């Protein structure tokens, strides 16, 4: 590995890294919002919209992201003029949102149906029940999978290279073209992606440890209450 190459083309790589982080952040936030929305709808299964969301989730989970990007970028933007960045974020949100929707739906289904009935019997409507009772409980269960999805979204942003967005992978490719040094160029990119992956996994582990500790404390408390009640 030749560090001279990296130092020489540092401005390029740095701007690429910034774009990767920017697109990852936007896509992660929007994909989680979209995924929770779709997951809640497909959990409730309203007559027509439920069918549509099911078809959407099924279709977007079983087609490649690359083809979706090409379809949206070269197909749709031929008729409507939209910037590449918008299309890139849209494709990432639609694709990964479908995966997140399945995770959220699974989390909601694993809840006790009594929770929903109790909330409804207290006079909350369907929407309030979802927002105040079901989603917060499901959120705790699916958080681990959601953080895993975050690292997948960060990896998926590397596909945006093919729709003319100059993110990290594109810049690594350019550095290789300028310097004829594939090892330094791609190893740098790979190391950065690996570092991002490790950071996300570290956060995941931290949250796991913390939630385990809280669970233990809650369990102890409930045990104590039981003992006192007896």
């Amino acid at each position, binding site marked *: 590995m030749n560090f001279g190459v990296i130092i020489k083309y540092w401005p390029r790589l740095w701007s690429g890294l910034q774009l990767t982080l920017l697109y990852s952040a936007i896509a992660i936030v929007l994909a989680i919002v979209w995924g929770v929305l779709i997951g809640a709808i497909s959990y409730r299964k309203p007559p027509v919209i439920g069918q549509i969301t099911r078809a959407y989730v099924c279709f977007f989970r*079983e*087609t490649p992201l*690359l*083809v979706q990007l090409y*379809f949206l970028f070269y197909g749709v933007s031929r*008729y409507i003029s939209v910037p590449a960045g918008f299309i890139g974020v849209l494709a990432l949100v639609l694709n990964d949102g479908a995966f997140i929707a399945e995770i959220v739906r699974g989390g909601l289904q694993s809840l006790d149906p009594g929770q929903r009935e109790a909330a409804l019997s207290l006079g909350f409507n369907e929407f309030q029940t979802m927002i105040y009772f079901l989603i917060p409980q499901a959120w705790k269960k699916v958080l681990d999978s959601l953080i895993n999805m975050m690292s997948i979204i960060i990896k*998926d942003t590397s596909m945006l290279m093919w729709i003319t967005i100059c993110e990290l992978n594109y810049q690594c490719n350019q550095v290789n073209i300028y310097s004829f040094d*594939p090892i330094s160029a*791609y190893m740098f990119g790979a190391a950065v*992606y690996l570092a991002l992956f490790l950071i996300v996994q570290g956060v995941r582990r931290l949250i796991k440890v913390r939630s385990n500790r809280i669970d233990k404390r809650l369990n102890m408390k409930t045990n104590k209450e039981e003992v006192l009640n007896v």
Partner: protein
Amino acid sequence: MTWEERFLVLKTMFVQGMPMTLKLIGASLLFALLIGIVLGTVRSMKIPVVDQILGAYALICRGIPTIIILLFFYAYFTRGTQFWISVLAISMVEGAYMMEIVKGGYLSVDKGQWEAADSVGLPRLYTITRIVLPQVMLVIVPALMGQIVMLVKGTCVAATIGCMDVLRRAQLLLPKYSYPLEIYAYILVIFFVMCHFLTWLGKKLERTVVKRIIGD
């Protein structure tokens, strides 16, 4: 687009592109399964140094996008066709995922199962084929089928380095028949049909495995 053109486009994609895509899927699947099953078995034995090396391999393949590995191989290897480079990159990455799945399957079998089989005097081969493997299959078949769907979806990145699969053929048709929306929609449908068939097959297989092993 007239019907005649549409027919020509579809014919070109299916006759020239599909065999390459299917070959790509077949070869990647073969090597990925081979890597997954062999290395997963090795990993479940927990040999000191080998285990760390395989752990690093799994981490690298899970943390780095496939596309960067593919581009690196394409730039680094001066020999070999695009087809074999794609197969190498895809099967390396997917093999790492399958290795983890197979390892998880082996580790899910309790040690007491072995001991119980030994204590009633079953031969070793019988223990493996009738006691341990069915339990492993029960865990890994659903996960493995999901991973195979990911592999089929993943093979389309081979088009970006010029492997003449169905996506690349479609891209080459675009200058002549300039209807990107329709042509890419065909590709989406082709991949959707393949993956949906595999998902359906996976569900069916899962049911069969559960029925054979656990009973109704």
